[in-house]
């Protein structure tokens, strides 16, 4: 094992940094605590407690039966009359404000490669406590199935994502919500859970049922407990990683059957609001598709007096419209989703469509139809972006045709993207089926700032890492990680876990290499198509990246001089998580027909031997005349040819 010294200060720094999840999105911060409604009990219950409900349902014979309710006792009828006088009327404005809130939002960003990135976010906030003693729960907007999961398994935070395709960071920039190819699940449990592993196993099975995914293949051989990389994103100060479980299934294929249960969790389903656009035949005809569910406790107000649960359902998709659009660079909502928007979800408190027009300030790049006067600025991933906003709750958005079909027509094809500051790649090197080497490349594209990166690698046990061969080099020099957490694997029990804190020098490539040996599996452990290879999940790079806004020191923008000497602090860095490609590694694969071949061969040999033995035992032997010698036989042949009678 490589024995590096821990550098505590650096670890602490990154821990503090990660615990504050800064996707600095000003839209998020404007969510105020307007939902904290006092629990007003409905007035009608008290009078009815003494009421008797004596029903004598007469029953018919068939399967579907009408329930007949006779109101027997006279006092009940009186009570009924009392009731009808008060409650069944239009409710005065004294209706208790609901404790839950739903928002929906769609962000569309035209990418420089000509692709379109569309990202849906649906957020349900609910001011409740799942961990209460009594399990009676009454759901309104929050989906019941997930609420039951949270309360049964004492989940504090749950993040699950299903992704088809790989996010090309260098072409597309940073996604709003990164996700590795395949399925990823990470869960923080409450510290009251005693048997975390058992709960985790049960939880994965239940989630696999809810999302129709093969999450039940998550077991101890692909589960790790990262010590630093995945910190809770919600409130709560427990950072003991004993309660954290992280697993990926890079092989998982995402399709319609995963999308349907995901859509069912939305309060409006696909009947109204932005979710009408989610048609699976279009969504899966794309370069990249990622859907996720994030559940976490959040603060209701900035003082954090009340907490509530946040369910965030996100769906990101990248359409390659340039190749499918007959060479025309033009897209519309109808072209992408084969639907247009006609209304907001009536349950949503806010329903908005954002179009990223940062690169198009004067409209020279593309034309946006219909135009909107509403603009919004937000700092997303360290960059100040400008968005056109369409508010679906306003009737005026839909215009005279009562439907919104956003259209972008490109005018020019050039335009370049700022390179993402952090970027990762990974590949397997080496030849043969015995050993190999994993190379992980981390790019720091910042011109003059270095920043630390947490690298998390979870490698299955059948690739036996030689951890003494671990090298970290940047700019051809050895780069000592300031923190290394390595947990060796156990065969068939747990995977390798390698976490490192590496300082990336400015404008450099840092390469992490480690050699491994390929293990021989038992013949039942191979997948049905073993020659396809075995997947190794993506490595995760988590980092606080210096902001592009802060990078802007040449002060081209007009600003007061007194504001521009020190780089502004609150936006100086932002959190980024980057996933590398998953690896596909070939393992030495036996010939699986071999046992049967061996059986066939040996059986045939045995049978032949048996046959001759049997012949020996059963044949009756007769004495033959001794055979002629070789010379005589040859002589006989010659005599035959000459026509002379043989000897």
């Amino acid at each position, binding site marked *: 094992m490589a024995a590096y010294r821990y550098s505590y200060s650096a670890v602490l720094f990154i821990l503090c940094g990660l615990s504050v999840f800064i996707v600095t999105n000003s839209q998020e911060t404007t969510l105020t605590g307007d939902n904290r409604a006092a629990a007003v009990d409905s007035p009608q*219950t008290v009078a009815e407690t003494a009421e008797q409900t004596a029903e004598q349902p007469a029953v018919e014979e068939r399967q579907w039966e009408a329930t007949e309710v006779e109101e027997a006792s006279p006092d009940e009828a009186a009570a009924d009359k009392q009731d009808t006088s008060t409650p069944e009327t239009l409710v005065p404005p004294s209706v208790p404000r609901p404790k839950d809130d739903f928002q929906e939002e769609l962000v569309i960003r035209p990418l420089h490669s000509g692709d379109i990135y569309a990202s849906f976010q649906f957020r349900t906030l609910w001011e409740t406590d799942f961990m209460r003693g009594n399990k009676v729960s009454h759901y309104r907007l929050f989906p019941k199935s997930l609420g039951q999961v949270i309360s049964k398994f004492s989940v504090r935070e749950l993040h699950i994502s299903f992704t088809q395709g790989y996010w090309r960071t260098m072409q597309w920039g940073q996604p709003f919500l990164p996700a590795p190819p395949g399925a990823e699940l990470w869960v923080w449990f409450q510290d009251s859970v005693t048997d975390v592993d058992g709960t985790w196993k049960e939880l994965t099975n239940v989630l696999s049922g809810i999302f129709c995914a093969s999450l039940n293949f998550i077991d101890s051989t692909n589960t790790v407990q990262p010590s630093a990389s995945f910190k809770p994103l919600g409130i709560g100060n427990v950072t003991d990683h004993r309660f954290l479980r992280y697993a990926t299934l890079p092989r998982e294929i995402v399709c319609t059957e995963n999308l349907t249960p995901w859509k069912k969790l939305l309060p409006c389903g696909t009947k109204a609001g932005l979710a009408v656009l989610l048609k699976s035949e279009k969504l899966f005809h794309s370069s990249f598709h990622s859907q996720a569910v994030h559940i976490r406790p959040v603060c209701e107000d900035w003082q954090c007096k009340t907490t509530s649960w946040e369910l965030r359902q996100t769906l990101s998709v990248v359409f390659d419209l340039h190749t499918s659009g007959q060479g025309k660079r033009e897209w519309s909502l109808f072209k992408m989703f084969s639907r247009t928007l006609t209304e907001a979800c009536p349950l949503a408190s806010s329903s908005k469509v954002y179009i990223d027009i940062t690169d198009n300030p004067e409209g020279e790049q593309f034309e946006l139809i219909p135009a909107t006067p509403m603009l919004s600025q937000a700092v997303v991933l360290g960059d100040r972006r400008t968005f056109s906003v369409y508010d679906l709750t306003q009737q005026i958005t839909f215009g005279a045709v009562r439907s919104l079909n956003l259209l972008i027509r490109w005018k020019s094809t050039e335009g370049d993207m700022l390179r993402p500051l952090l970027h990762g790649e990974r590949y397997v090197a080496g030849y043969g089926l015995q050993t190999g080497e994993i190379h992980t490349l981390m790019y720091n594209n910042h011109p003059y700032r270095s920043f630390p990166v947490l690298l998390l690698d979870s490698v299955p046990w059948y690739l036996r890492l030689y951890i003494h061969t671990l090298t970290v080099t940047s700019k051809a020099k050895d780069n000592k990680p300031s923190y290394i957490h390595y947990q060796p694997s156990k065969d068939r029990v747990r995977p390798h876990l390698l976490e490192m804190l590496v300082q990336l020098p400015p404008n450099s490539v840092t390469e992490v290499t480690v050699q491994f040996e390929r293990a021989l599996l038992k013949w039942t452990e191979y997948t049905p198509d073993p020659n396809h290879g075995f997947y190794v999940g993506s490595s995760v790079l988590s980092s606080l990246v210096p902001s592009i806004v802060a990078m802007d020191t040449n002060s081209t923008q007009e600003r007061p001089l007194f504001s521009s000497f020190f780089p502004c602090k609150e936006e100086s860095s932002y959190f980024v998580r980057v996933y590398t490609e998953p690896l596909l590694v070939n393992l030495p694969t036996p010939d699986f027909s071999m046992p049967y071949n061996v059986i066939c061969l040996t059986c045939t040999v045995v049978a032949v031997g048996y046959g001759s033995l049997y012949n020996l035992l059963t044949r009756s032997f007769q004495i033959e005349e001794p055979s002629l010698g070789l010379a005589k036989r040859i002589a006989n042949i010659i005599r035959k040819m000459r026509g002379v009678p043989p000897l």
Partner: protein
Amino acid sequence: MVTADTPAPPSTAAGEIAMATVTALRRTVPLPAVPGHLEYRYEEQCRTATVMEEDALNQPTAAVRVHVVLQFVCSPSHHPLLHQDVDVYIGQRRTALLRIGSPMRVGRTLEQLLAHMEPRMKQVLQVMSFSYTDITAALSDRVRLSPGNKGSIADSMRAFKSSPGYEITFSLLNPDPKSHRLHWDIEGAVQTYIQPLLTKLAPVANFSIDSQTLYYAVLGVNPRFDSSRSAYTLNADSLAHVINPVEARLGSNAASSNPVLNFLLYVPDAHHSPLYINDRKKQEVPSNAFHSPRWGGIMVYNVNGFYGPDAVFPVDININMAKVMGVFLAQLRLLLGVQSSTPPPGFQVATCGSVGLADWELDRLMWSRSVENVATATTTITSLAQLLDQIGNIVINDNIAQQVSSAVTSLQLAVAELEAGNLGFALQYSKEAILASERAFFDPSLLHLLYFPDDQKFAIYIPLFLPMCVPILLSLLKIVSEARQKRREKQAKKD
């Protein structure tokens, strides 16, 4: 005026209410189909107050107790519980009041009196106690005792099967959230109406309640417009198709495997209301609700009367939970198998009060659940035994053996307790028996696919057997042909 009737005082138990008992005579007649035993109790006393009678009726005792009201003299109307035309009054607890006419007409001695009361007594037992039909209903899944009787099958199929727990889900279906903003105080309604019943049913099973609101949930059938009533109607025939699209969104409880009882409150959208359900006779169902056996119930709640034609949408509507819960409570009783068969004429059954379940009904339920559990556990153990017989080389781990033996022990205990009349213990043991037997039966190591069938083993060795057969067959042929030749030669010699 002296009335010499018998408001039965609390029995032999200690701490009884002191009442002036003049004479007391007790005869104990054990009957086979009755939990515990039947006590005939004849008491004569002077009485002034009817409060004690109420006391007596509310006294919880273990066995069914029948109090016989003997009326010797004068006006029968003085007894507050027994009206003129009511012969038998069945109370909430395990008590019943029985009236017989003047003893002069029936007989002088007590024996004659009791003999006269016998048929009535049997009727009372039929109503209050566990009977043959209940056994039939409890075992209907396994035994078809009377295949012709459709009604009883429907009755027995309606109730949920016995299970250690049930999930009760109330769902408010709002297909039109743009027009109706519905508010239902489900939390308070559950506390008020459902919880007392479930608290009472706690010995039978664990119940968990939750509720949800589903938007844009539409029924599977388009209701027909009935111009005569200017309302939309659903016919009983189409009810079976109503639920399917809704059920896809109801969801099951992800966190438990107990059966789910669904209760749906459907508020029709503004364009399809009012909506009424018609029964088979094309009559409107007054409760506007229906239920499906072993699934749950649906109630249609029309709200179009609560706003005028010029209302501004969306309209806020508060749902009258008393009305809704009345229907759901009735359906819940049916689905749980609390049979409320119509009593014979002359019987009056006390209203169940706020709890919604009389003690004797609970007893009957516990009885039938215990019997059903015992039958289920027995079947499971039997089929496990059959499986073990089929596969000779199956490996049985120690824990499975332990489970099986504990299941058998619990079964025996349950049956013993059932015989002794201790319903609570019997139910408890029968539940344990089910749990243990199922844990044994569904143990992953007992999967019969894990074991190779013998024919496949032989198939693998075909490459061995086939070539080995060839010389054997050839030599057999040779033997046959040689034998034939020999015979022919013999015949030729004879000739």
